[in-house]
């Protein structure tokens, strides 16, 4: 398994058994496995780790797990939401710093919190088309090592200064400088078009759907308890590689309870008419971390004796008009899922497992409420009746972002690798649904099946 390999020419595409529409003419793209580093809270043990450090670490663990040192992978795609301008080639630089063959091409993707999902989607399609045989999808984010930019006026002065040719021009540029310009400008989670933070946006939606504080706290507690149980049974032993002495997600509180969470003060929606229900306990914390997923064709995996956990069956992106308040910021999944179901001839109840990204407990509960709502499904989704309810015992069964944390671009890789392993455990024929919401009113939804 040592020598660098060149990928074989794609074999004639076998017909897939997947339910994805239009999949009859392409081959399967499978999830071989994944690797992530434990997620840390902002300012924690990864405070001085860059996106490139963390993505490289996640990649190194993946390479080691699957014995890919020196191999040329078809393509690697990853990205970060909070990104320094110098990191224009973040993924390629991480590949060059890894044990993969330096002949492995890589590109960056950025689609807010759906970045990781989009890398899986794009790369799995390339595999299905036979353009590549193997791929690594991933994402990374550091809210600790966030880029800090100079203010807009200072930036203009500095650029003019660099273009100035004469002393007079230089003097003229510098003379425009004011002390206030020196204040740095840090990134925020505010939506550029509304000025509202993501939490405030979700608070509007949570209130609109009448989601209670108790329901949100219960979901959060379940997330922590399920993630803790997954660790206890060694579920993450082959999904994670420790980093900087962290061996588990730092945000995990195995001993939390509804009582404990009930004591927290609300942080979002305090200016609304409805009671504020969103606390630090039922919202995801700012986090640092990275994740990767190894995707391949069946042939590529078989040649190397690698496991095949699940198939990427189909995916559907979505976006909503949150700017004018027609939908909540994080409700795009509610719209994308019915389209995905229709294309695949499935109902919402046809799944063994559901992974709905817990940006906030309220996000998950609002999406579920929307699918259960007769009026919403008829009027907004154009369906005959409500999509119906999701069996909560099948939802986020090993916890999700509320417990694990949510390094924005890393969440997609975490969810895809986790679901792939869960499906493999459930056995052939089992099916899972993913929905990951993102800033800008977007989402990516996906169907996976046990391979």
């Amino acid at each position: 398994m040592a020598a660098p390999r060149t990928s074989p020419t794609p074999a004639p595409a076998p017909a897939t058994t997947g339910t994805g529409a239009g999949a009859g003419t392409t081959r399967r793209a499978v999830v071989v496995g994944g690797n992530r580093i434990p997620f840390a809270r902002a300012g924690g043990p990864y405070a001085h780790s860059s996106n490139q450090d963390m993505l490289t670490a996640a990649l190194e663990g993946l390479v080691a797990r699957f014995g890919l040192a020196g191999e040329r992978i078809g393509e690697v795609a990853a990205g970060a939401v909070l990104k320094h301008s110098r990191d224009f080639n973040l993924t390629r630089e991480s590949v060059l710093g890894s044990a993969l063959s330096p002949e492995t091409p890589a590109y960056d993707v950025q689609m807010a919190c759906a970045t990781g999902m989009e890398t899986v989607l794009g790369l799995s399609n390339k595999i299905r088309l036979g353009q590549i045989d193997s791929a690594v999808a991933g994402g990374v984010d550091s809210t600790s090592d966030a880029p800090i930019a100079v203010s807009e006026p200072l930036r203009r002065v500095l650029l003019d200064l660099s273009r100035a040719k004469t002393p007079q021009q230089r003097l003229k540029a510098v003379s425009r400088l004011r002390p206030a310009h020196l204040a740095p400008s840090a990134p925020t989670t505010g939506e550029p078009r509304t000025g509202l933070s993501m939490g405030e946006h979700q608070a509007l939606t949570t209130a609109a759907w009448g989601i209670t504080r108790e329901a949100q706290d219960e979901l959060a507690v379940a997330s922590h308890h399920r993630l803790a149980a997954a660790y206890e049974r060694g579920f993450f032993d082959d999904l994670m590689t420790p980093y900087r002495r962290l061996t588990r997600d730092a945000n995990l509180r195995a001993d939390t309870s509804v009582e404990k969470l009930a004591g927290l003060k609300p942080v979002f929606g305090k200016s609304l008419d409805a009671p504020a229900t969103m606390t630090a306990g039922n919202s995801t914390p700012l986090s640092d971390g990275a994740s990767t997923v190894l995707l391949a064709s069946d042939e590529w995996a078989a040649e190397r004796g690698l496991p095949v956990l699940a198939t990427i069956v189909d995916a559907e992106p979505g976006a909503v008009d949150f700017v004018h308040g027609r939908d909540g910021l994080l409700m795009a999944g509610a719209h994308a899922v019915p389209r995905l179901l229709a294309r695949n001839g499935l109902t919402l109840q046809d799944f063994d497992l559901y992974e709905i990204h817990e940006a906030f407990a309220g996000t998950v509960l609002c999406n579920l409420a929307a699918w259960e709502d007769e009026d919403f499904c008829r009027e907004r989704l154009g369906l005959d009746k409500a999509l119906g309810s999701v069996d909560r015992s099948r939802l986020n069964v090993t916890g999700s972002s509320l417990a694990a944390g949510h390094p924005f671009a890393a969440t997609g890789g975490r969810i895809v690798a986790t679901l792939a392993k869960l499906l493999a455990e459930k056995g052939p024929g089992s099916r899972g649904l993913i929905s990951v919401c993102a800033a800008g009113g977007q989402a990516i939804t996906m169907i996976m099946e046990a391979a």
Partner: protein
Amino acid sequence: MTDTYLNLVNTGFTKKLAKQLGLPRPAVLRRHRPGAPLVPGPVVVLDDAASEKDADTVAQQLLDWDLDVRRHAGPEERFGAAVVVLTEVASPEDLSAPVLALGPVLKRLAPGGRVVVVSRPAAGATSPAAAAARQGIDGVVRSLAKELRGGATGNGIVLADGVAPSAPSAVGALRFLLSGRSAFVDGQLVEVDSDAGELPTDWERPLDGRVAVVTGAARGIGAAIARTLAGQGATVVAVDVPAAGDALAKVANEVHGTALQLDITATDAAERLLQHVRSRHGRLDVVVHNAGITRDKLLANMTPEKWDPVVGVNVMAPLRITDALLVSEALGEAPRVVCLASTSGIAGNRGQTNYAASKGGVIGMVQASAPALAAAGGTINAVAPGFIETDMTARIPFATREVARRFNSLQQGGQPVDVAETIAFLASPQAGGINGRTLRVCGQNMVGR
């Protein structure tokens, strides 16, 4: 970790000073470097009259390796090694001529030189006089090793009766002991039990095509084992606890192997290990049970928390995994199991009743498992490291560490690679005739045998 004293007495002004003050000056050991000669000079092959035929066989083997071989020590020469063949001695009187002929050679042994004595086990002797002669050789080897200087070592090869000096393991052991790979093996007798084994086509890569599992591979001796086995051609599956996964990944990637995060004491450990090697490689040829822990405590203060994990990791896990492998049919045609024992398991060590129980246990385990492995076409052996420069020994208090480090014939601690090289030898195809044995890598530590 670095041995500052060793560096000082071997470099610059401090070297001169140490010489003038008559301070002990541990030598920089001759270790294997690719392309370096097998021995640092001509080899003289000595024998007692009765063993001349075997000595000729050995000499011919050395010639086949393109060495400069002499059958008598000339007056002015400097020697890279002396091989003394005493396979047919019948009485202690027979030792006189060859051993006395060896004496002057020792004075002219090059730094990093080697003395290898080939003999037969006393247990197989047909007369008390022959047994006395054979056992006497044991004493000669251990004594002369203590007299050697300049990083030279003295070791023996004990060939079971009926095993020719041309047997694969006799040849393999000879080459190993002459080479830089045995730098920290000193005063030891390697017992060759049978004609089993096979000479490699490439002595630099005897493990080509073999699949090897190394437990505890994230750091220290385990990481060195992974590197050494991979360097000799093996495909390495590096195993360590999930918490050590990041260091493990680095080692696995460095050796182009795979990392398996696994607690070897888990009930399904063997099953998961087997699943990994079966799916990735189809089979398993070499298992190195290296993972080990210490929880030192005087027995008077010992607790189950300090006793049980040590026994669990160091000996129970190797026992269980080896059993599972033997019934799995996943083993290759000539499997090799190598375990890590310790000089503490041989000589005992204050505060280490738990560790000594586990490491003594390993020695018993390999002896008792030898027939089962032989039946599977393979071998099981142990390596007992003495003081090795690792993170573990770096935690020993300074004064204790300095004493422990110098308390051997080479007056220094060994490097992890020294242990790894011995393990690689026992894992090699040429070591197939060595089974159930424990080989010390201790620079001839003054304690124990």
